[in-house]
C-alpha cells in the first residue's frame, strides 16, 4: 500500500518533487514499519518458546537482570543508530566505555562526589567523540580508520594506566547508579525507555533530526540544500562519545569495578542491533525503535541460549544463523515492497 501516488493527472513541476518526496517517504516508512513489526513478532515468538522450555525465563528477576545490561548498551545504541542513519559509524565505543568507566571509578574512589565523577567521565567520552568527529569531518579521514585508531589508542591508554588491573569500588553511592529501582524496575532502564521514546518521536517529527536521513540518503544533495553535514556529524560523534561514557560508568557501577579489558566486541553488537532494526550500513534508513528492538532481540538470544543450556561450542554458530535469518527476513520484506512499487509502475501509475 503506497500512499501519495498520483493518478496520472496533470501536475506542476514543484508538486512533482513534493509528491516524490512524500511517496519515497511513504515507501521508506512502510518498509521500516515492516522491519519493526517483524522484529516484534520474532521477539514475541522467542519469549513464548523460551518460557515453554524453561519457566525461569519469564520471571521478574530474569528481566530485571536483562534490563540492566540492556540499559547500559541501549544508551549507546541510540548514538550508533543516529550515526548509521547519516552513513557513518563509530567502532571506538567499547574502548570509550572502558576509559570512561575507569575515569568514573577512579574519581569516585578518590572521594569525589559520584555525580561529579560521572560528569567528568561523560566529559572524557565527549572529548573522544570530539576527536573522532574533528578528524572525520575536518580532515576527511575515513570513519572506519579514524574510530579504529581511537579504539586502539583509548584501550591502550586505559591498559597502560591500570597495568591491566581492574580497580574495585563498592560503596552504596557508587552502586546506586545501577542498582536503584522503582517498584522493582531498574531506574536506568526507565530512564532509557523515556529517552528512547522522546528521541524516536523527535527522529520522526523534528526537522533537525529528519535531516539525518537526507544526509544518509545523499550527502551531496543534503549539502546543496543548505544542511551543514559536517557540523551535524560532529555533533553526533560527540553525542555517541558521551553516551558510551554513560554506558561505561553505569557498567562500572554494576560490576563494582572498572575492568580495563572489558566490553570488547560491544561495538559490533551495537551495529548488528541497528542493522537488524532496519539501519543500512550505507545510511538513510533506520529508526531508534527498530534499533532498540534489534538490541532486545540480541539480548533475548543470548539469555535464551543460556536458558536452553545450548552446548557452549554451538553458541557462536547458532548466533550467526539467527542473525542471517533476521537480516534475510528484512531484505525479503523490503524487496517485496520494491516489487509492488515496480508493479505499480508497470500499470502506468505515475509515481512522480
Amino acid at each position, binding site marked *: 500500500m503506497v500512499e501519495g501516488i498520483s493518478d496520472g493527472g496533470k501536475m506542476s513541476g514543484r508538486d512533482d518533487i513534493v509528491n516524490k518526496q512524500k511517496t519515497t517517504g511513504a515507501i521508506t516508512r512502510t518498509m521500516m514499519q515492516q522491519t519493526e513489526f517483524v522484529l516484534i513478532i520474532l521477539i514475541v515468538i522467542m519469549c513464548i518458546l523460551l518460557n515453554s522450555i524453561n519457566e525461569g525465563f519469564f520471571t521478574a528477576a530474569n528481566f530485571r*537482570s536483562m534490563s540492566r545490561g540492556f540499559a547500559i548498551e541501549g544508551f549507546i545504541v541510540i548514538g550508533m543508530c543516529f550515526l548509521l542513519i547519516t552513513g557513518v559509524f563509530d567502532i571506538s565505543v567499547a574502548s570509550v566505555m572502558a576509559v570512561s568507566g575507569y575515569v568514573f571509578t577512579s574519581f569516585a574512589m578518590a572521594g569525589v562526589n559520584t555525580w561529579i565523577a560521572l560528569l567528568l567521565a561523560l566529559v572524557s567520552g565527549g572529548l573522544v567523540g570530539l576527536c573522532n568527529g574533528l578528524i572525520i569531518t575536518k580532515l576527511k579521514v575515513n570513519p572506519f580508520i579514524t574510530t579504529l585508531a581511537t579504539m586502539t589508542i583509548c584501550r591502550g591508554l586505559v591498559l597502560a594506566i591500570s597495568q591491566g588491573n581492574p580497580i574495585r569500588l563498592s560503596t552504596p553511592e557508587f552502586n546506586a547508579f545501577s542498582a536503584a529501582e522503582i517498584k522493582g524496575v531498574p531506574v536506568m532502564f526507565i530512564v532509557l525507555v523515556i529517552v528512547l521514546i522522546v528521541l524516536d518521536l523527535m527522529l520522526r517529527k523534528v526537522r533537525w533530526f529528519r535531516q539525518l536521513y537526507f544526509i544518509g540518503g545523499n550527502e551531496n544533495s543534503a549539502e546543496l540544500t543548505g544542511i551543514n553535514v559536517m557540523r551535524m556529524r560532529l555533533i553526533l560523534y560527540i553525542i555517541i562519545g558521551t553516551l558510551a561514557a554513560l554506558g561505561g560508568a553505569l557498567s562500572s557501577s554494576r560490576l563494582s569495578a572498572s575492568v580495563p579489558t572489558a566490553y570488547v*566486541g560491544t561495538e559490533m553488537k551495537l551495529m548488528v542491533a541497528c542493522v537488524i532494526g532496519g539501519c543500512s550500513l550505507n545510511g538513510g534508513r533506520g529508526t531508534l525503535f527498530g534499533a532498540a528492538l534489534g538490541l532486545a532481540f540480541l539480548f533475548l538470544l*543470548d539469555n535464551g541460549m*543460556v536458558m536452553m543450556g545450548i552446548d*557452549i*561450542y554451538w553458541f557462536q554458530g547458532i548466533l550467526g544463523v539467527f542473525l542471517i535469518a533476521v537480516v534475510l527476513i528484512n531484505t525479503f520484506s523490503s524487496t517485496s515492497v520494491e516489487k509492488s512499487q515496480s508493479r505499480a509502475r508497470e500499470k502506468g501509475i505515475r509515481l512522480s
Partner: protein
Amino acid sequence: MNKRKVLALLLALAMVLAVFTACGGTETEEPVSSGGGESVAPTIDGEIAYVSYYTTIPYWNDGLRGLEAAAEDLGIDFDRTKNFYGPTDGSGADQARIIDELVAKGVKGIIVSPIDGDAILGACENAMNNGIPVITVISGMNDTSTYYGELGASNYNVGVTGGTYAADLIGGQGKVGILTIPGVPVHDQRAQGYVETLESYPGIEVLPLVNTDADPAKGQERAAALIQANPDLKVLIGTDSVGGAAAARAVKEAGKVGEIVVIGMDRDEDLLGYIKEGTVTASVASKSFSTKYMAMQYMYWILTDTMEDIGPGVTDVANGIPPIPLVTDTGTMVIDSSNVDLFLDALGK
C-alpha cells in the same frame, strides 16, 4: 587542500611525538640496556624472555613477581617492563611469531606459557636448535623434545581439587554450573577435571557449560541467566578469575549469597575481596610465584651448566643430560575465609 594536508601532517607528527615521550620507559618490544645502576655484572650475559598470552590480564602479575625475585636472587637481568612478551589475545600464531623474533634477536633463554600443546612447537624447536633453552610454565606441549621441562599445576587436577571441595560443601547433592572459556586448552582441562569429578557423585547434576568470553560483563549476564534458569542451583564455578568474579556478582545481584556456593580461580584482588565478604566460598589458586621462581632457577642451572648428575666436575648440559625434571607439578592452594587475609595483606590492602 594544502591547509588540510598540513594540519593532518602536524597532527600525525604530534601524536607520534607524544607516543615516544609517553612510553619512554615502558616499551615491552625493544628492551633498553638497564645495566646502568648495578655494580655487579649479571650472571647471565643476555636476555631471558618470558612469553605468555592475553598479556593484559592481571593474572600474570604474581608470576612476573616470581621471575623478578628469582632473577634478583640469581643475579639475572629480568624486568617485566622489558622482558615480558606475548599477544594481547589468545593467538597461537602470534605467540609463535614472537618466539621466532626473540630467537632472531638472540635471547639467551625463553620461558613460555604455551597457548596450547601445538601452536608453538615449531618456534620452540627452532629456539632449541639455536642453542636457546626453552622452559614452559603452566602447561607443557605435545612434543617434549622441543623444550627442557614444564612446571605448573595440572589443570585437570585444579578441577579435581575444586570439584571435590564443592561436592563436599553441598553434601554430594545438587545442581552445579560452570563458567569457562571454551577452546582455551587450560580451561578445557580445568572444566574437564571439574565435570568428571562432580559427575562421579550420583546426586550431583552438572549443567551445560557457560562461556564467559573472558569478559566480566558478559560473564555476569550469562551467569545471571543460568541462575534464573535453575532456581535450585547450588554451586557456581569459574575456571578463571573472570568467571569466578562474574559468578560472585551474579549471585549477589540475584540476592542468593549463601544459597549458592561460588568457587573461583586464582587470586585477583577482585576475587579476594569477594572471599573476604563471603560471596565467594573459595578459590583454587595456582602457586604462580613459586612456579615462575623455579622456572627462572631451572633456566639458570641450564645456562650456567652447574648440575653434575654424571659425576663431580662433569656437567650435564654439555654432555647431553637434561639437568631438570621434565614435569614439575607445583600444585595448587585453596584460598578461603580462613586464609584470605594473608593474601589481601600481601597486596597491601
